[in-house]
């Protein structure tokens, strides 16, 4: 941080909040709120005179509330810039000035009670999101007594207590009576790997953090008796297993099983831990002077705001999702945006540093190239046909279509931001959007050609490029048996599949239609496949209204690795296909032909109206 603060080409904006990001790769426009500091950091020499006279005491957030700070303070010793900050929420007041003692003693005259928030705007070419993480609040597990028993602390508080720069100067004491604890219990997986409390995922860092803590305690106080209650110790990194073995060799007891309950002895403040040792199958009781809860990692609170600002997607566990877990692990789905650190997934310092370096290098590559190569399959809006409804802009997951409501000008596509999912194309009711290389005419020609011969023998399938089509490939290369009746049309995203294509396939005699795409968490176009679901729900209603069994249209999410699911889906759908009779198909074709003719008549009328309007305008 200090290096970044000193670097001539790095502008460090502390105490600032990103309010708005607009634009696209290479051309982002950022609006940042620089919050009022009330202290001129250019003049402040951090002499500390102001702190000495400040009468307000508040719990120190950096020290996990284990010590206090003044209203005017430095957040932590290594903070950059090294200058004081006046927290106006804690100060006795500046309008009118209620105390003002800090300003009176400041020789450099750097305290300004009239300081205001400022908005700064600037352009950047790439954005790296590294907003970190939060930790699990152990109060959510009431049986462990965190928040009720003073001597139950979490791993963050442990770090402060053992740290030389902490509230006790590194002297490890327990909070209730400030005596040195000798018997210390560590409880793992608090808020991790649980379906009841917290989250199901592993927080990745807690096991080794505890191993490190036990070694640290042993080093500082050799008579400490540490016991660790764990589900399993995940020591997978370089040197981790050796470190774990060293901890065991130094006498730390590892007991497999998580405590069911922790009780406090009110007289002594000691804690009684009830646990089932899953290796021996016996119920055990252990008494400790202090218990440390190893709390898990949570996605940061600000994640949703950043996700919205940059049109990012998140995993089911709430962390930001990368473009590809192996090939593009630091690229966000939005071009020109990169992710680093725990906002992507829980990870330790080494991994975070590694990922941050990669993200910076990726951003550097992008900027040094000076130009961006975009895919050929972007969308194009025909201004003459467009009705300015704005639906395309509404459904675009990348906000690549700019549309001003009521402006009477057609939306415009920012091609550098368009990823080519095609959702806009299938949502446009007026046919004003052309998806290059996946045009309506091209797909319709494929439908017609495939269903020209023996349509009754086919399970007509629309598969997305990234997952379902690749899942079919996986089924093939895995030599999995599935019926030969499947006929696939590939689109970039299932969101590209137009309602009219499904109806066209039924009109051409298809007994079954399958629409297949990525699982929700895997969607390669952020959340474009949610539009697929909405469309399929509409189609089921429509089919039912027309007297066609909705069951004949199926929806499946198949990932690239799910070759087995692909084969199974086709095996089951083959049974469905065989149950569709010739009479049923003929009836479907008849109904849909009538509907089609009505639609053509409507379109002809609209075209005539448009031509009339154009002629009037020309005249």
């Amino acid at each position: 941080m200090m290096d970044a603060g000193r670097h001539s080409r790095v502008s460090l904006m502390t105490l600032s909040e990103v309010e708005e990001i607009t634009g696209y790769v290479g051309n982002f426009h950022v609006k940042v709120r620089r919050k009022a500091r009330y202290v001129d950091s250019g003049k402040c020499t951090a002499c500390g005179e102001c702190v000495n006279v400040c009468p307000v005491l508040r719990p120190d957030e950096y020290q996990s509330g284990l010590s206090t700070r003044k209203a005017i303070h430095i957040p932590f010793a290594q903070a950059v810039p090294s200058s004081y900050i006046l927290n106006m929420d804690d100060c006795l007041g500046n309008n009118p000035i209620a105390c003002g003692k800090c300003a009176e003693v400041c020789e450099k005259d750097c305290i300004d009670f009239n300081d205001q928030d400022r908005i700064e705007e600037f352009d950047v070419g790439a954005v790296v999101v590294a907003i970190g993480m939060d930790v699990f609040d152990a109060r959510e597990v009431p049986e462990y007594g965190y928040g009720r028993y003073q001597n139950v602390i979490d791993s963050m508080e442990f770090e402060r207590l053992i740290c030389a720069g902490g509230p006790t100067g590194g002297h490890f004491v327990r909070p209730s009576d400030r005596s040195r604890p000798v018997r210390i219990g560590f409880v793992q997986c608090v808020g991790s790997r649980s379906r009841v409390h917290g989250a199901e995922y592993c927080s990745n860092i807690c096991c080794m953090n505890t191993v490190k803590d036990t070694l640290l305690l042993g080093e500082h106080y050799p008579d400490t008796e540490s016991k660790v209650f764990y589900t399993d110790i995940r020591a997978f990194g370089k040197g981790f297993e050796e470190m774990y073995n060293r901890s065991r060799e130094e006498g730390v007891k590892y007991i497999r099983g998580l405590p069911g309950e922790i009780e406090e002895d009110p007289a002594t403040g000691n804690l009684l831990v009830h646990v089932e040792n899953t290796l021996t199958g016996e119920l055990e009781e252990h008494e400790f002077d202090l218990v440390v809860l190893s709390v898990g990692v949570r996605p940061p609170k600000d994640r949703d705001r950043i996700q919205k600002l940059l049109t990012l997607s998140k995993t089911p566990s709430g962390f930001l999702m990368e473009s590809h877990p192996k090939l593009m692990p630091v690229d966000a789905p939005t071009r020109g945006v990169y992710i680093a650190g725990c906002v992507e997934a829980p990870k330790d310092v080494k991994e975070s540093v590694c990922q941050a370096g990669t993200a910076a290098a990726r951003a550097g590559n992008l900027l040094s190239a000076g130009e961006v190569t975009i895919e050929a399959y972007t969308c194009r809006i025909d201004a003459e046909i467009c009705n300015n409804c704005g639906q395309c802009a509404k459904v675009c997951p990348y906000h690549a279509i700019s549309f001003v409501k009521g402006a009477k000008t057609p939306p415009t596509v920012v091609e550098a931001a368009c990823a080519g999912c095609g959702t806009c194309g299938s949502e446009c009711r007026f046919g004003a959007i052309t998806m290059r290389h996946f045009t309506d005419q091209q797909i319709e020609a494929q439908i017609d050609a495939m269903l020209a011969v023996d349509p009754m023998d086919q399970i007509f399938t629309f598969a997305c490029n990234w997952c379902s089509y690749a899942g079919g490939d996986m089924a093939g290369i895995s030599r999995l048996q599935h019926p030969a009746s499947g006929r696939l049309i590939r689109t970039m995203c299932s969101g590209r599949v137009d309602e009219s294509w499904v109806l066209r396939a039924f009109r051409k005699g298809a007994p079954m239609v399958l629409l297949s795409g990525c699982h929700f968490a895997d969607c390669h176009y952020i959340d474009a496949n949610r539009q697929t679901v909405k469309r399929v729900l509409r189609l089921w209603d429509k089919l039912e209204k027309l007297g066609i069994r909705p069951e004949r249209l199926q929806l499946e999410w198949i990932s690239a690795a799910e070759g087995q699911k692909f084969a199974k889906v086709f095996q089951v759908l083959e049974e469905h296909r065989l149950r569709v009779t010739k009479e049923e198909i003929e009836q479907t074709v008849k109904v849909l032909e009538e509907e089609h003719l009505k639609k053509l008549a409507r379109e002809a009328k609209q075209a005539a109206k448009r031509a009339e309007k154009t002629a009037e305008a020309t005249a």
Partner: protein
Amino acid sequence: MSVATKFKCLRCGHEFDGHYDPKAPLVEWTCPLPECKSNSIRPMKEKKRE
């Protein structure tokens, strides 16, 4: 606001109860039957239930 809704699997025909809010972000629906696990899940409207 999510309301209690009956869902129907359009592959195996299994009907089950759940919650659905058309205005909330969609979630991936899956048939709860282990032998089916289809994603062709349709929230049934009130009139269709009768």
